[in-house]
């Protein structure tokens, strides 16, 4: 039995936590979006008779309560720290690696072999069609840090076989597949806290791309290197937000140029979104997000190599920091994101007088992307699963 004061203290803090929690939970205004976790928070569940009788209301209420719990951000951080101290080396879909790195955890069970094969087939079909119509066609599937910096992973970390996917793709596409596995070998090519590559990494890939298509790349000293933020904590941080997490620096290579940028019909001030630096996701600085269609027109000299060339880039968010390097080489760049664009590539390419095509995805996104097969639509042949 405990003494009276001891008991009183216990009762006071226990009831205090309970009632303070309840009051704050119910009375505080609610946010719709969590910056720290990069996701939308649950909405108030609908209290209809049906939903109460089948129990969905109760489950949704619990979700709503956990999503809007007071000091959720701090508490989620506590949970992450507790898990890490307890020895866990993966949390929320990412691995804690050496040197402050975090890497996406994607296991074989989470990657559908069928999807990977269908995607590769679609890329091949598109390639055959584009080449037939006299366009150059290249595919760059960017290997992730979990492959390129694999020595940093905790021992025994389970991952899908990315090498096999990239090799298979190389087999299917031949020379049209640009293999970056020998190019992106440095720590500086990948962010520690985000699943994207750094601008430095994108530049190395740009050099590789120019070599393959036979163009002279813009030299590094033609750019001004700027660190736009030194406090970037990206998507991999959001998966397990802990105070004890490193910061990344986001660099930008800027040069003097005049561009006209139009995204989904709206004119953008440029390739960079300054407002993104004030928020949590600094990677949004590049392009300001993802759009269905984007066009970039550069004012190039009439005698420049790319003055007559029109590039089509089919991409996921990996291309956002890569595109700025291409503006000096193409008079017009069209950018399509298949998550939001539903038209036929062949039609688009024809209408916009495309001369070159580049498909650019991050490997981890590519293997689970269900929109890649859309690339094969509207071509002369259908995808034959047995090929």
């Amino acid at each position, binding site marked *: *039995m405990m003494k009276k004061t*001891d*008991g009183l203290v216990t009762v006071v803090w*226990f009831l205090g936590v309970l009632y303070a929690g309840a009051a704050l939970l119910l009375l505080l205004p609610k946010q719709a979006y969590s910056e720290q976790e990069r996701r939308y928070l649950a909405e108030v569940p609908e209290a209809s008779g049906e939903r109460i009788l089948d129990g969905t209301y109760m489950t949704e209420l619990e979700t709503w*309560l956990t999503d809007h719990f007071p000091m959720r951000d701090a*508490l989620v951080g506590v949970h992450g720290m*507790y898990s890490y101290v*307890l020895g866990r080396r993966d949390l929320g879909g990412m691995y804690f690696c050496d040197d402050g790195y975090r890497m996406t955890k994607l296991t074989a069970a989470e990657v559908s072999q069928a999807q990977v094969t269908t995607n590769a087939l679609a890329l091949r079909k598109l390639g055959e069609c584009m080449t037939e119509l006299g366009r150059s066609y290249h595919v760059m599937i960017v290997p992730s840090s979990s492959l390129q910096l694999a020595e940093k992973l905790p021992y025994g970390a389970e991952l899908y076989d990315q090498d096999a996917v990239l090799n298979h793709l190389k087999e299917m596409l031949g020379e049209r597949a640009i293999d970056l596995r020998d190019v992106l070998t440095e720590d500086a090519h990948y962010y520690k806290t985000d699943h994207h590559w750094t601008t430095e990494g994108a530049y190395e890939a740009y050099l590789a791309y120019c070599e393959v298509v036979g163009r002279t790349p813009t030299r590094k000293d033609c750019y001004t290197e700027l660190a736009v933020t030194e406090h970037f904590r990206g998507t991999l941080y959001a998966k397990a937000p802990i105070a004890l997490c490193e910061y990344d620096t986001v660099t930008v290579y800027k040069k003097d140029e005049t561009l006209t940028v139009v995204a989904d019909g709206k004119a953008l001030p440029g390739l960079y979104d300054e407002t993104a630096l004030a928020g949590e996701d600094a990677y949004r600085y590049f392009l300001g997000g993802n759009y269905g269609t984007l066009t970039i027109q550069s004012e190039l000299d009439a005698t420049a190599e790319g003055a007559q060339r029109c590039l089509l880039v089919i991409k996921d968010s990996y291309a956002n920091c890569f595109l700025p390097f291409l503006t000096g080489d193409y008079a017009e760049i069209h950018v399509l994101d298949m998550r939001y664009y539903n038209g036929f590539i062949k039609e688009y390419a024809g209408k916009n007088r495309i001369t070159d095509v580049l498909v650019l995805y991050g490997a981890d996104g590519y293997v689970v992307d269900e929109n890649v097969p859309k690339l094969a639509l509207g071509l002369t042949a259908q995808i034959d699963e047995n090929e």
Partner: protein
Amino acid sequence: MVFSSITFLFLFLPAVLLLYLLCPARLRNGLLLVVSLFFYAWGERWYVGILLFSTVFDYMNGIAIGHFREKGREGAAKAVLAVSVVGNLAILCLFKYSDFFITNINRVGLNLPTLGLALPIGISFYTFQTMSYTIDVYRGAVGVQRNIVAFGTYVTMFPQLIAGPIVRYQSVEAEMLHRRVTVEEFACGVQRFVLGLGKKVLLANAAGAVWELAQGDTKRTVVLAWFGAVMYAFQIYFDFSGYSDMAIGLGRMFGFHFPENFNYPYLSKSITEFWRRWHMTLGTWFREYLYIPLGGNRCGKAKQLRNFLVVWALTGLWHGAEWNFLLWGLYFFLLLALEKFCYGRILERAPEGLRRLYALVLVLIGWVLFANESLSGLRDYFGSMFVGTATDAQTIYILYTNAVLLLVLILGSTGLPKRVATALMGRLERHVLVTTLVRNACLMGILLLCVACLLRESYNPFLYFRF
């Protein structure tokens, strides 16, 4: 509703405590009854009707039995008792075992459709509780409860409704009508509740996640198979004992003293001892209401063996309507019979460490039986514990990322943390401020850490929920 949820901790409990405090003493049972029905209906909706039916049914049976006993009409009293027992078992069988019977009968040729009835949560607990009441009324061990609200409160009280401990009416008969809550009692309840919550959320859930990994991996290595089984053993212990702790703690907050349900079962030195430390209220129930009425150990060895068999077969089946649970029960029947009639004496003279190892290994194998409901899954899992690749990189990853957890689980299963804490508090006894601060800071820390985990972990199962 589950105790380990934000809905319970920050909506239900604060509301109920406030109402209970403001409520005049004579209306408190009524309040508890109403909120407990709400608690049950929240999770089970229409099935609250079965709970109400069971309550009213045995309330009336109790009155009838008492009435006939008073009049000296033993035969009639016995008949009503039979009605009560058969009725309760019928409800239990219908909702829990009917599809098991049907599926198995279908195996011999018939093609009956299964009923597909979902299991009402807690039915195995509350039907056993109401039966204990009518049997005890018949035996004259308790008085008839004529106040339906008080009786209803006994049956439906939310602290122990869903997962025990199985509270016999005689344990709380006095407290149903007269109970006091003092600050010290409430604080004791808080401590018990918070520690139970910690066991469930911080320990059981973490262990369970590893078990799920092992069970789901069809190509598990030998080492992972064993490690997974060990993690399951910890999950079920901390889950179930944590829930019992929460129930006892909550009961205390309302002035009830429920019986203990666990007593460091993994410290046992024999299987016999294990079953005196694990799920003690179930053991007590089966002993009082089945073993002893069947003759217990008073009718010779053969009958005693038979009684053992009946009790353990039913104990197994009580845990679930599947063959593996029956096998689990019979497995313990075999071991207990052997200990009782064969090598019990020899075992007692063996060194303590060996006895502990003996008990732990056998209990672990029992858990593998318990955890795999499909017989093919069971064969598969047992197989992988003895045949296959010894270990691989991923197994090592699982081992070292859970090493600290394993250590905490092992320590938590012993009485060591409690002894250390008591000794520490004893040393600092004169520094009241320090002891108060340390104890309360630790408890509050555990509570907040649990809340943090509840916010993030979508994995929050409760294993004894199928009962």
